[in-house]
């Protein structure tokens, strides 16, 4: 494995070059725009080739789980006060990065291809290829974020993605709602980002670096938990952990900063698929996985788990009653992100990451399918759909695959990842009773997830058409490659075997093996072992990676979690219970949806009428927007601002500024008298008179004639030389 810069840099640079070129090319319209779209697709496909290479080497390369490539270069030096302060940038590739790179590039490629179909009509409306310009920049930023080796460059790409998200949500800028939505998304995530930056600064202040490896080393050396390094009375780990995790809350739309994501659905559906389902929101979870040792050292895991649980259940309850097709998906995204965060909290590191990957795939597919439906029937309200499976076969198949995956039905990817998160939560609950809270939240959310996803499917695709006119106008689905291939390709990867099995070694799928390579995901993705970073050597930029296979023994997955036999047995038993429970829950959710919307034996209307108050609460998302605007901004910020303004006007202006002016005025009166008498009459006029005398002499010399000046200069020089 010899990695040089030229085999890593193109991953980020190809989409970036596409962005730069398209920024000029795309707005020309006509063939230039077609070329720009093609270039954007080709660039991301090209970088996926490089990503596949890296993935291939890491997964099939027989390396140990903590093998990494880490190349740095000096960004700039700050010298001052006798200290040299070097800021390094670099790329850091370990197994997690490799998997993430593959997921981002492949999903982005599929979404780009789908976009060529979905955005086809958009080309004529003066926007031309702007969508693809931002998609390229966004993909480039996401890949840069994944490759970053430190929190600071991660933050740069993080903000770049925020900007792209803003631009893409506001793609249909002529709609007022869209304009509000992108500002809302931008400003809400900004709250989290401010804290994120604060966390970075706190870490930088203490250890002088924000590279992952330095952070891990500092944790291993106990710097983060040292009492001397306390920030505002709490340990550095707790402080920076909370601050950075707030960044995650903002970006991954966790409670209480989840309000922006539903509104972000105003953007084009492919951008929702890429940004607000598959990658950008996942970046928050990725960040919290990267800083997991900090969260652990700061004893924040319970906090994280509770936030995740609340988000998972809360968003799921809201999704129950939504009638907008994309809104259901938006809230289910929030809910699933809650599961990931719950997974981080309960210490289920690889399951949380696996859920990130599986969710990215099936949610991207769901959104693309939703785009397909919306594009076909030209409306988003589910009560007016129904029976669409006859018109859209491929979309229907793809969507069912994804629905089963998200509901946690066995043999689908969602079961593999979500069940493991819930199982680990259950294990934690058996150790300590306080963990029952997030666990129950998670299981309840799982039930609701199965229910509302199937409700969506039944309402949209099954039964009889409820709005015959809309149904008749719906286009028959044609076999167009750039619409169906991304859908079907992604739906193939909703199967569980890709994630639960063993891709390495003997055969494709190897279930139930007792030892050796068992479940590649578990083998590859493990918590960072901070002790290993104490004597860490960096590789300079431009060097070739010289580690060979021999130095790394084949990785083995420790089936007993490194626990004693008894404890491991306990964990296994609890896991089986958890799996059983979640299967029961998933099927009961599906069954309930079946009863309600197909069989009709339970009447949803009765429930709505009986619990109208709760229904309205859920319909409006617990009035969180209302709360923020009416409660927080109008009751809190606005009066405070008014108070400040009043203080400014009444106190500071009147007494401070005006009062000071009064004093000055009085002093000035004295000064004026003095000025008139002494300064003006004696000094100024006297100087003037004396200047007048000299003036007569100088005026003759200062003729304005340059050559005369030169002659004077020469004469002065001559005099100087003669005087020497």
């Amino acid at each position, binding site marked *: 494995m010899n990695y040089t810069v030229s085999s890593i840099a193109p991953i980020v640079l190809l989409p970036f070059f596409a962005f730069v070129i398209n920024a000029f090319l795309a707005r020309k319209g006509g063939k230039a725009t077609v070329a720009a779209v093609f270039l954007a697709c080709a660039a991301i496909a090209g970088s996926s080739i490089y990503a596949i290479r890296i993935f291939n080497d890491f997964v099939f390369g027989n390396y140990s789980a903590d093998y990494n490539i880490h190349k740095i270069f000096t960004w700039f030096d700050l010298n001052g006060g006798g200290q040299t302060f070097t800021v390094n940038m670099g790329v850091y590739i370990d197994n997690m990065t490799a998997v993430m790179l593959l997921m981002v590039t492949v999903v982005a490629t599929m979404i780009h291809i789908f976009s060529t179909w979905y955005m086809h009509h958009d080309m004529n409306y003066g926007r031309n290829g702007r969508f693809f310009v931002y998609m390229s920049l966004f993909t480039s930023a996401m890949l840069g974020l994944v490759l970053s080796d430190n929190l600071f460059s991660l933050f740069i790409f993080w903000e770049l993605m925020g900007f792209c998200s803003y631009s893409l949500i506001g793609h249909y800028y002529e709609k007022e709602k869209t304009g509000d939505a992108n500002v809302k998304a931008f400003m809400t995530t900004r709250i989290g980002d401010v804290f994120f930056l604060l966390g970075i600064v706190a870490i930088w202040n203490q250890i002088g670096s924000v590279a992952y490896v330095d952070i891990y080393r500092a944790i291993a050396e106990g710097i983060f938990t040292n009492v001397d390094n306390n920030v505002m009375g709490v340990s550095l780990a707790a402080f920076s952990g909370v601050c950075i995790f707030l960044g995650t809350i903002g970006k991954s739309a966790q409670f209480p900063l989840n309000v922006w994501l539903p509104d972000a659905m105003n953007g084009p559906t492919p951008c929702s698929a890429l940004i607000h389902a598959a990658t950008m929101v996942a970046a928050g979870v990725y960040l919290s996985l990267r800083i997991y040792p900090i969260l652990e050292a700061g004893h924040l895991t319970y906090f994280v788990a509770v936030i995740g649980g609340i988000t998972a259940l809360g968003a799921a309850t809201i999704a129950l009653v939504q009638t907008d097709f994309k809104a259901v998906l938006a809230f289910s995204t929030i809910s699933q992100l809650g599961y990931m965060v719950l997974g981080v909290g309960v210490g289920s590191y690889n399951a949380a990451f696996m859920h990130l990957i599986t969710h990215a795939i099936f949610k991207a597919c769901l959104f693309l399918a939703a785009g397909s439906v919306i594009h076909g029937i030209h409306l988003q309200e589910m009560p007016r759909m129904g029976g669409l499976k006859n018109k859209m076969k491929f979309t229907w198949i793809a969507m069912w695959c994804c629905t089963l995956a998200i509901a946690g039905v066995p043999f689908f990817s969602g079961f593999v990842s979500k069940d493991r998160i819930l199982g680990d939560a259950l294990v934690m609950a058996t150790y300590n009773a306080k963990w029952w809270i997030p666990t129950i939240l998670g299981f309840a959310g799982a039930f609701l997830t199965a229910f509302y996803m199937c409700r969506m499917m039944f309402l949209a695709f099954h039964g009889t058409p409820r709005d015959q006119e809309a149904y008749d106008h719906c286009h028959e689905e044609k076999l167009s490659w750039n619409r169906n291939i991304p859908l079907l390709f992604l739906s193939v990867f909703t199967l569980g075997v890709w994630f639960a099995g063993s891709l390495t070694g003997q055969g494709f799928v190897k279930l139930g093996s007792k030892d050796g390579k068992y479940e590649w995901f578990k083998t590859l993705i493990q918590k960072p072992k901070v002790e290993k970073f104490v004597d860490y050597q960096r590789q300079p930029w431009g060097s070739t990676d010289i580690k060979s296979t021999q130095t790394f023994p084949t990785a083995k997955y420790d089936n007993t979690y490194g626990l004693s036999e008894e404890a491991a047995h306990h964990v296994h038993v609890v896991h089986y219970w958890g799996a059983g429970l979640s299967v029961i829950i998933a099927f009961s959710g599906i069954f309930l949806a079946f009863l309600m919307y197909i069989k009709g034996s339970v009447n949803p209307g009765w429930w709505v009428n009986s619990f109208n108050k709760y229904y309205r609460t859920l319909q409006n998302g617990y009035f969180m927007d209302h709360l923020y605007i009416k409660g927080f901004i109008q009751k809190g910020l606005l009066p405070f601002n008014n108070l400040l303004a009043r203080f400014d006007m009444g106190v500071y202006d009147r007494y401070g500024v005006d009062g000071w002016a009064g004093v000055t005025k009085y002093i000035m009166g004295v000064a004026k008298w003095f000025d008139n008498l002494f300064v003006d009459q004696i000094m100024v006029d006297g100087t003037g008179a004396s200047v007048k005398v000299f003036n007569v002499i100088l005026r003759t010399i200062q003729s304005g004639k340059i050559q005369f000046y030169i*002659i004077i200069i*020469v004469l002065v020089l001559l005099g100087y*030389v003669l005087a020497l």
Partner: protein
Amino acid sequence: MFLDTMFLLSALATLGGALMVVMSKNLMHACMYLLLSLFGVAGLYATLGADFLAATQLVVYAGGVVILMLFAIMLTGGVEEFVNKFGINKIPSMGTTKTYTIGAIVSLIFSFVILKTLSPLFKNYSQADLPPMESTVEDIGVLLVTDHALAFEISSVLLLGALIGAAVISRPRKINGGSK
């Protein structure tokens, strides 16, 4: 031998051109003689082994400065007025015997000053023990971005300033009173 010949030819071009710049009564001709003189200086650079400098001299002066001068002569040419606004006779713009005399005296004074101050410091070096000439392009390139990086940056800013300044200054604009 070869270098001596080249030196003599270049020095002749340089000094002859310079002298004709002084003597010529026609501004256009003076400009052409300046071009000759600058070519001579480029030749002198070449005999000094400064190949890059010689080429730069050609590019900047022959291609840029002289054409600019010619342009300026063209754009400002026209009937010369011999009387200024006070009705006093102006000195002819290409000089008279009187101005040339003053110029000669000033240059004599200047040469006296320079010789007086600098001749004690002067030490002659002959050509005998010099190393052979080498290509200077790479070394100059390295020097420009290492030792002289600051000067390089500043001169780039200077050139940008000159570019913008020249464009802004010579841009035609309305003047109160309606002249051109």
